[in-house]
């Protein structure tokens, strides 16, 4: 089925003679066979968004529909790979067309030649339903890829292969109730704009360990939860996203570089194979899929990249894995939406964004969650979605930030003034929030006792008080404060500098286990409680604040993973001793 172009305006092409095509079909445009997708139909003419640069296209060129919606291929070979927004593998495109991305390059998403060792799980004669595992493939050293019965196929297994196969080989045949025989290859296709089905959805109840102290201790996120990281440029959004991609205790990470810098993707590509997962020692790249549609790549493919990413995430979730999707940045995605909407001459909503912006964003985040997967074995998987937001001028009153805040449960607000003071991660503790605290508190209590959450609320209380006291200091100076209030200020400073600040570029500090976070917070708060006692006993305030142990508290976070407990105990003992001395000194005088 083919039509002819009547209009070209940037990435928007209008073609007529496509009466039989469906909305959302993928089409091939012009002699270079550029990839496009049908957005609207009027009569027999279709508005098409083209995922590649349209320079050189003109009326009269041919448009062919493939009859299929925009889909991804799901199977072994996705991990440790980097794709563009429409799932074309970038290393293979480079091999084919050089350092720059040329148009009309056609590469299969999954390598057709690579052989995988398929280990069957199902046996002939088994009754299978969608989601049941037919067999497994050790995709990378870190991840066992489960080949599942695709959605819509149900019945009796007639045959299962085993041994070395390429993804297109038939590895099982299934006969359904009507007697139709389905030949199943190792991969399946799924339309990206449709959420993959599951049996049941649950409320998230386990925390995702990110190794970042301000996140894990103050504003935790649940596995299967949603979070947004808004911040002006230079506030460290990308570093936060990279840290999460590196250290989160999930099985799979999908990192979507959506309309961001090319060098950032290169950074991930170079760094991740070197970094080891702190839990199993495997290179992090072995559990990562990268989707890179950088800002200079065609804008329409940027719109698709978010969907490509979340669909791949859902597929791994269906195997029973915990998956994290990191999208940097959703604002660029929204801008791509705005650009296409403008070219379609739609009536704009706020700031030129289309009126459906909020509902599209909600649809994306709603694909996160903890689910019971399809299949008979009741396995559970989760998709955690974390999106960076880049509000113009850092002002979160703009439509993308506002629409996102209505949906997500965790909000890590980055603050440029913290970034200027080189307080990283520059997450503001007064404006951020996590709505998972109540559901996650029982987990923390079970693992570490009541102390963890008590410390948290105490720390939050002190930080809150500090901001009020700072107002007073600004008006009348520090001397007007009572010793107790001065102590609150000192402790708050210690929480900020010795606990919340975390250097992503120092190995000892980049990742903090829960236990280390707990003990470190304990240490910082111990100073507060000891000093409060001491002040009661009339100890000299300035001497208390300058005891040498405080310098050691300041360096405590750098302690090695293996020895930190011993270190912290020593520091605490020293702190006690020195405070005692100050008290004794006070009595002598």
């Amino acid at each position, binding site marked *: 089925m083919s039509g002819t172009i009547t209009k070209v305006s940037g990435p928007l092409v209008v073609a007529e003679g496509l009466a039989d095509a469906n909305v959302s079909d993928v089409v091939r445009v012009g002699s270079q066979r550029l990839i496009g997708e049908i957005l609207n139909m009027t009569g027999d003419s279709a508005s098409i968004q083209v995922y590649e640069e*349209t320079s050189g296209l*003109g009326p009269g060129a041919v448009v062919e529909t493939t009859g299929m919606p925009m889909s991804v291929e799901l199977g072994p070979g996705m991990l440790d790979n980097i794709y563009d927004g429409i799932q074309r593998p970038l290393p293979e495109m480079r091999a084919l067309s050089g350092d720059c991305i040329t148009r009309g390059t056609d590469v299969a998403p999954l390598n057709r030649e690579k052989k995988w060792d398929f280990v069957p799980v199902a046996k002939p004669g088994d009754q299978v339903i969608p989601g049941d595992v037919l067999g497994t493939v050790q995709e990378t050293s870190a991840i066992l890829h489960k080949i599942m019965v695709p959605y819509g196929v149900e019945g009796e297994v007639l045959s299962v292969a085993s041994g070395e196969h390429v993804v297109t080989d038939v590895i099982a045949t299934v006969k359904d109730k009507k007697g139709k025989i389905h030949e199943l290859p190792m991969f399946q296709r799924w339309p990206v704009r449709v959420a993959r089905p599951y049996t049941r959805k649950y409320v998230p109840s386990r925390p995702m360990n990110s190794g970042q102290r301000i996140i894990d201790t103050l504003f935790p996120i649940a596995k299967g939860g949603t979070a947004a990281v808004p911040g002006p440029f230079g506030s460290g959004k990308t570093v936060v996203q990279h840290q999460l991609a590196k250290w989160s205790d999930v099985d799979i990470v999908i990192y979507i570089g959506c309309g961001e810098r*090319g060098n950032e993707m290169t950074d991930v590509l170079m760094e991740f194979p070197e970094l080891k997962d702190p839990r199993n020692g495997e290179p992090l790249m072995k559990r990562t899929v990268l989707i890179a549609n950088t800002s200079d790549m065609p804008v329409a493919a940027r719109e698709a990249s978010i969907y490509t990413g979340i669909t791949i995430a859902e597929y791994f979730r269906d195997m029973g894995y915990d998956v994290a999707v990191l999208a940097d940045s959703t604002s660029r995605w929204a801008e791509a939406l705005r650009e296409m909407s403008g070219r379609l001459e739609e009536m704009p909503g706020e700031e030129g964004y289309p009126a459906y912006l909020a509902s599209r964003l909600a649809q994306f985040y709603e694909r996160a969650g903890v689910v019971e997967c399809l299949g008979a074995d009741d396995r559970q998987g989760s998709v955690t979605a974390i999106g960076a937001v880049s509000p113009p001028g850092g002002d979160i009153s703009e439509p993308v930030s506002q629409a996102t805040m209505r949906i997500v449960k965790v909000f890590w607000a980055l603050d*440029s003034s913290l970034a200027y003071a080189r307080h990283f991660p520059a997450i503001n503790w007064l404006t951020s929030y996590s709505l998972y605290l109540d559901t996650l508190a029982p987990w923390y209590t079970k693992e570490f006792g009541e102390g963890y959450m008590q410390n948290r609320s105490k720390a939050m209380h002190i930080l809150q008080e500090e901001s009020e006291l700072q107002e007073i200091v600004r008006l009348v100076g520090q001397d007007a404060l009572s010793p107790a209030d001065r102590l609150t200020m000192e402790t708050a400073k210690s929480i900020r500098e010795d606990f919340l600040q975390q250097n992503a570029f120092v190995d000892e500090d980049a990742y903090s286990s829960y236990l280390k976070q707990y003990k470190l917070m304990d240490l910082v708060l111990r100073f507060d409680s000891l000093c409060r006692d001491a002040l009661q006993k009339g100890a000299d305030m300035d001497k208390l604040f300058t005891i040498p142990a405080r310098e050691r508290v300041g360096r405590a976070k750098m302690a090695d993973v293996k020895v930190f407990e011993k270190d912290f105990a020593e520091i605490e003992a020293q702190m006690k001793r020195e405070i005692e001395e100050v008290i004794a000194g006070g009595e002598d005088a």
Partner: protein
Amino acid sequence: MIKEYKTIREIASPLMIVEHVEGVTYDELGEIELPSGQKRRCKVLEVEGDRAVVQLFESAQGINLAESKVRFLGHPQQLAVSEDMLGRVFNGMGEPIDGGPAILADAHKDINGLPMNPAARAYPAEFIQTGVSTIDGLNTLVRGQKLPIFSGSGLPHAALAAQIARQAKVLGDDETFAVVFAAIGITFEESEYFINDFRRTGAIDRTVVFSNLANDPAVERIATPRVALTAAEYLAFEKGMQVLVIMTDITNYAEALREVSAAKKEVPGRRGYPGYLYTDLATLYERAGRRQGKKGSITMIPILTMPEDDKTHPIPDLTGYITEGQIILSRELHRKGIVPPVDVLPSLSRLKDKGIGVGKTREDHAGTMNQLFAAYSRGKDAKELMTILGEAALSEDDKLFAKFADEFERRYVSQGNSTNRSIIETLDLGWELLKILPRRELKRIKPEMIEKYLPKED
């Protein structure tokens, strides 16, 4: 055979509509021949059926609907490139204006370039010594980075950019370098300032100048940075040169873009700029970088003036989201006589971490950098408090921090436009300033570094 059309239906500068065209494609370059025989350039923005919307690069003055002829050339705008471009001056469309001969083209390149495959990029990691402490020490520039200067009207950004162009070098390296200078809608005087500086230092022979001055056609400015970057890409990736691209002023570029967008009656985004400003700027800035297996590199220093010194204005804002950091100039420091008036705290180089440290600069670099930032930030807070409440309200420590902030601005930031400090001098100066502070406050630096580098009390 190229067809000629005499079917111009409408002209509303900078747009023109031509009817009854055949075989015209999107983004194609065209040529208009006036009755006087004069020729002007244009490009196709939209084709619908047999009707083409065309954007003029020059003024519409003198175009006559009945007599003027339009030809479409069958390809997008191209630039003839060759190594002979070095030392020459071109207009904003890439035509020689220095009276010299036309360039014998080695190749013709589409000025829009192609997006670089992220898998083909090499991560920028080679330290460039600019000799400016605030850049080398605190916001380190590396080869292949794009680091804009955010300036304001009346601030001396030209002096800083010229200083960088003059002093920049990679330590222990003698590869061929080249400068590509794109003047985008700036005044004759500012352009001459750069060219004279290049001439004075002899850099002019290694420089390609693309000049679209304030009185040149505004719409031509949309092509100027693309033309310049096409030349830079050729020199860097085909001739293996280390290219420094200076583009000034991006604000004029964005305004030209807004002018065309408004003429096309597009739905405007913030402040009337088109919704695709981010994407458009990205297609310029992202052309900087290094490629795996290629010797050359493009390092880019775009300059823009922030309207009303407002960093949240769409042009600096979107630029900051694309570039790898920014150097911000401060009017307050300029008034205080600090040269160059670099506002250290909001300035940033995102790629510094890979360009510093052992084997690149010195092992203490990262720690002292963070410490200087944190101390200056605290010192500025203390000084602010001091202006409200008086010196007596400050704690002893805060008084030291306030003193540090003053000294830091006076000695570290204000080095003048002709001092060329080596990275070692910059780092040592940093330590000398940190000596002002109590040692227990130097939490960002490892103790062994303090032991090794902190100047001892005499």
